[in-house]
């Protein structure tokens, strides 16, 4: 028995192409992804890793990649043993043009019944995708929001 998938849809005033480029860029991602860089060559089967300050936080493999349309990768959190032992879940992004906007739909699925990761990602994705939207629409991300001592806190600057 699996827990339900986490899904989140956000509408962004830009093109699917620009959304795609920003979301998959090792240089841009730390701006909106709580300081994490996402790195991959985005070929099916290639490694995907999320690093912060040189430490690998999560990693997985590209499962599907159709630029500006659909991206799917497996996801294992690496930095805490209790998370790592849960094994891989799956992250899928779908990009749909709607007039001058993009509908970006995230589905994160494959959580075991007692998952400790699902609540973490359910809290994190809205922060990441809100900041991505702000960056694409205004040129500046939100100020970095992270969990500290059980509380969400925002830093004054970026990340």
């Amino acid at each position, binding site marked *: 028995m699996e827990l339900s998938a986490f899904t989140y849809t956000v509408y962004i*005033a830009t093109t699917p192409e620009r959304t795609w480029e920003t979301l998959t860029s090792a240089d841009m991602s730390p701006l909106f992804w709580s300081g994490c860089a996402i790195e991959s060559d985005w070929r099916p089967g290639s490694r995907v890793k999320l690093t912060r300050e040189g430490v690998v936080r999560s990693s997985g493999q590209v499962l599907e990649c159709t630029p500006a349309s659909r991206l799917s990768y497996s996801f294992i959190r690496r930095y805490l043993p209790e998370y790592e032992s849960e094994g891989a879940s799956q992250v899928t992004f779908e990009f749909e043009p709607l007039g001058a906007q993009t509908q970006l739909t995230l589905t994160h699925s494959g959580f075991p019944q007692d998952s400790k990761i699902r609540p973490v990602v359910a809290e994190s994705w809205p922060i990441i995708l809100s900041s991505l939207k702000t960056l694409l*629409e205004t040129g500046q991300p939100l100020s970095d929001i992270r969990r500290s001592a059980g509380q969400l806190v*925002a830093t004054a600057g970026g990340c």
Partner: protein
Amino acid sequence: MEAPQFMYETYIATTPEKLWEALTLPEFTQEYWSDARIESNWKPGAPVRHVRGDVTLNSGEVLEYDPPRRLTYSWTVRHLPEYEAEGASRVTFEIEPLGPQVRLRVTHEGFQPGSKTLTLIGGGWPIVLSSLKTFLETGAPLGIGRREGKIYTS
């Protein structure tokens, strides 16, 4: 088994006070909420209506009004008979300041299993809240909205 509900969080570069105005004043909601004005005097128990032109889209009453932190009202879909028959649900807005931005959490609950209204609002809220965020951060809303469950672009 979890009770059927819809929950959505969005983080917005604005103040709790500005966000509160954007949620409660008709001249603001009509900018980003698919042309719908919200009408209420916001006293406990007072009627709340979403109105587009002379059509009442949804109506309910004020259950909690605690500016600029927490707002709850009941919600019955009025313009589509098959939804109206499902009766009232309720929506809660919670605003939390976080440095120079706010977290807005919208929880819409009180649905029967298999509710059509839940499917309708589950598609609608991300559009409304994405447009609200864009409106507060850039001064102009998104060029999308929804009527009778269908997305339109402008």
